[in-house]
């Protein structure tokens, strides 16, 4: 069954369309990559799925629920987690609080219960702490629970961002350029890591990437965008030699 579908999605800023006639059919459990040069509309796609932007036209459905018109927190609560191209942690808060905040939608108590510390409040808070610490332990961040997020080295910040996205309890994870700023060695480790979390957390993953090595190495299917248009789609072997892809990345023959 398709987990996420996009039908004829178009999004324009003024006269400029960042994404046009976009179609997507993401199966449960799949790991799909979206690549394309800078400004191809990749991050716009993520912002449309998660409700940061509202699509000008078209429909995006997650397990049959229409996402267009919903707010980001409503969409996230449907269990869609995401990370950001330029890390967006809550920098001045602790590592633990970064992960705890992502439990907002799951924490089942009312404002009155919180203000008076009655009812489900204590039990739920305890549960959130346990779950957050479990996630931190899995990602080898438990000893840093009290540390301020901005003090973490870059690699650990990326890791924490993924832990925070998983605290949503996602079925679909959107990774926005997870390999940004990494060297080839680190990319190898990251590939292993992404495959591991997919298995461990039963995820369907949609991945935006710049680094061909990463996408080619782990994605089952890819989509190539250029200036908002889908120019190719298929398994890595096909994409690798697709003339339009080579053209988009390397330019068109000798300048005439």
């Amino acid at each position, binding site marked *: 069954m398709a987990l996420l579908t996009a039908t004829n999605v178009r999004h324009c800023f003024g006269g400029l369309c960042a994404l046009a006639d976009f179609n997507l059919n993401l199966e449960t459990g799949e790991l799909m990559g979206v690549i394309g040069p800078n400004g191809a509309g990749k991050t716009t796609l993520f912002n449309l799925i998660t409700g940061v932007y509202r699509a000008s036209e078209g429909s995006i459905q997650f397990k049959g629920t229409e996402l267009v018109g919903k707010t980001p927190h409503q969409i996230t609560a449907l269990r869609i987690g995401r990370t950001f191209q330029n890390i967006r942690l809550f920098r001045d808060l602790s590592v633990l609080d970064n992960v705890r*905040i992502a439990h907002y*939608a799951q924490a089942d108590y009312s404002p009155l219960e919180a203000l008076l510390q009655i009812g489900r409040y204590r039990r739920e808070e305890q549960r959130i702490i346990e779950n957050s610490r479990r996630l931190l332990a899995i990602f080898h961040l438990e000893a840093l629970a009290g540390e301020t997020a901005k003090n973490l080295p870059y690699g*650990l910040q990326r890791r924490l961002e993924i832990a925070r996205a998983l605290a*949503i309890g996602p079925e679909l994870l959107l990774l926005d350029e997870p390999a940004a700023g990494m060297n080839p060695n680190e990319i190898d480790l990251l590939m292993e890591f992404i495959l591991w*979390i997919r298995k461990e957390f039963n995820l369907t993953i949609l991945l935006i990437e710049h680094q061909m090595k990463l996408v080619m190495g782990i994605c089952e299917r890819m989509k190539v965008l250029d200036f908002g248009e889908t120019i190719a789609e298929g398994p890595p072997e096909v994409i690798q030699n697709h003339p339009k892809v080579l053209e988009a990345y390397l330019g068109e023959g000798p300048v005439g």
Partner: protein
Amino acid sequence: MKSALHNGREWLAAQRWLLPVLLLAGFGLAFAIPEYNLLNKYVQLVVMYVGINIILAVSLNLVNGYMGEFSLAHAGFMAVGAYTAALLTMKVLPVVAYPALFPVAILAGGLVAALFGLIVAVPSFKTRGDYLALITLAFLMIVKSLIENIDYIGGPRGIPGIRRMTTLPWVFFWVVVTVWVVRNFVYSKYGRGVLSIREDEIASDLMSVNTRRVKFLAFTVSSFFAGIAGGLFAHLLQFISPRVFDIIKTTDILIMVYLGGIASIGGSILGAATYTVLLELLRPSTVAALLSWLPAIVFEPLNEHVIKHLGVWRMVIMPLALVLVMIFWPRGIMGLREFRWFIPKRDLEAHHRIAAREEKHGAPHGH
């Protein structure tokens, strides 16, 4: 030396049982002081102002500190609470026969102020920073001119002759309630939501935080306690007028919050206490009394040319203090830090417990 101080602080932080003991002792004192005149009347009055200012500073810190907005409306909410409570005790509730109705009036003041807080929360959905600050300033001015133009509630002349019903135990009670409720708010998912909005509102929304709901709550709780403080203030000063709740009053509360430090309940308590006492010390009569030991030849000219004019200079010194604190001491006394007694044990342990058991299987180690 430094480490001894540090150890002492650590030891004190661990003695959490002291908090309820101190609270009980505080209540006892709050009853005993006026009963047996343990402090002179003037000092008692100052203590009550300190308490009311703590309520104001702690509640404003929720919006200006934890949420990182810059609201100037606090004196407006305070006015709403003061007028509501005063009108109730003077014209509606038979408080002379039933003094027990006094807390009902105070509570009503808080609730009406909270309603106004809901109204101010709405523009905060779309607007941030400077623009929201301007909107809250507009709200403050609207409240003031509304009061000035309603003759039934005294117009610009205000309401004189309010019964003095605010007592030390009541002030103490409301301070405790404010600190407890705000603290509960801050350490719940809503409080963490407020903090995440300050850090990065879009990321907050994308981590499932219902930012509108959280803003609604923060403004409501904040304005509720401003209203409570207003009611207590009216029944202590016994006279309110629109001029009492102008931008100067808001500035006073802002100074207390930023002097104490943002996102810190303990900081707001210290900020309010420090500032209130400093302000009292700047009163001409207090300064004159404090310096009266000087020989007359020095004291007389000093008194004539400086001390007597301090009342005017206050309006210069205090805003200047706000500017200086924000530039040179942006964190204030304890910005972003907290008395450990106020932090739920659960939170302390979760942050500091060292991994007792290493997970059997973790993610592959990178980097």
